[in-house]
């Protein structure tokens, strides 16, 4: 395998794993959101993410050329082989963390997909063109809720500011592959935080490692739950 195709494989894994881990985290909210309508909204977003993950990992498997399909890549890799950014895997301690993560992460995904949709790889461009429309809605959902929680009650404001402070350092890693996107990301996120009466944290500590397979322990637990059925019953179907 040439270095070039290896790079393509890694890039597709990073994109696919981002979407897959987000899908799994969002799926965990089904039946646990504050209201049934929000259950449906989050499940919709989870399924959008899962749909993108399947296309990206399926393509990654073909590029790799080692006979691994989307299921093999999703269910039979360990945490050290996952290439998602750390932000995706962080546990959602409460609804505020989920909402802020949705805003931060999906704003990044939208910009990344928009760039890829205009890129030279036609197959990837087609996947990205489909995903970018979905991302726009995900960002909107995160932004709507960030404003309501931030500019809501004292309790919701406190929790949402805590979520912003906790997640902000992890947003730096998102732009390691394409640093030029961060200004556009800031111009999406900062006005939302301002409208939500939330403080935009200072840039400082910037944990990273997800793209190299060095994850938080949270990913191990997430993968254990996601993979247990397939590992116990290979190829099981509903």
């Amino acid at each position, binding site marked *: 395998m040439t270095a070039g195709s290896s790079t393509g494989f890694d890039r597709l894994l990073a994109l696919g794993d981002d979407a897959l881990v987000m899908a799994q985290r969002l799926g965990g909210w089904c039946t646990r959101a*504050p209201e049934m309508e929000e259950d449906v*909204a989050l499940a919709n977003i989870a399924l959008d993410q899962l749909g993108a993950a399947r296309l990206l990992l399926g393509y990654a498997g073909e590029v790799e050329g080692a006979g691994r399909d989307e299921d093999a890549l999703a269910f039979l890799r360990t945490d050290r082989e996952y290439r998602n950014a750390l932000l995706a895997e962080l546990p959602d301690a409460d609804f505020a963390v989920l909402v802020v993560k949705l805003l931060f992460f999906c704003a990044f995904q939208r910009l990344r997909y928009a760039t890829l949709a205009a890129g030279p790889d036609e197959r990837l461009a087609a996947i990205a063109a489909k995903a970018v429309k979905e991302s726009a809605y995900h960002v909107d959902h995160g932004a*709507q809720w960030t404003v*309501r929680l931030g500019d809501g009650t004292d309790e919701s404001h406190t929790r949402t500011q805590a979520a912003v402070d906790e997640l902000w350092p992890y947003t730096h890693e998102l732009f390691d592959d394409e640093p030029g996107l961060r200004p556009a990301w800031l111009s999406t996120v900062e006005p939302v935080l301002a409208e939500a009466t939330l403080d935009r944290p200072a840039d400082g500590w910037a944990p990273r490692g997800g793209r190299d397979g060095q994850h938080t322990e949270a990913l191990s637990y997430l993968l254990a739950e996601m993979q247990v059925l397939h590992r116990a019953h290979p190829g099981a179907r509903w």
Partner: protein
Amino acid sequence: MPEDWPLWEVFVRPRRGLSHTHVGSLHAPDAQLALRNARDLYTRRQEGVSIWVVPAAAVTASSPDEKDAFFDPAADKAYRHPTFYAVPEGAPHL
């Protein structure tokens, strides 16, 4: 908290040229989120191109108790239907 979320009535226009039709109701904390919830609940399968949401409290409905007085008198007034009238000869586009 959820009991604070008011009820909204949802109207969807299936496609351009047709009227918005009532499709159901949902809970949401405000109009903007009601619109988004409606999108997620009622247009998942390409059911529409436009959505209205209206606070259920803003709808004034006729009462079942008034049904007789409201609707029954129309039952025997066939002359209100266009088919009651014979079209005169020589007026094809009437």
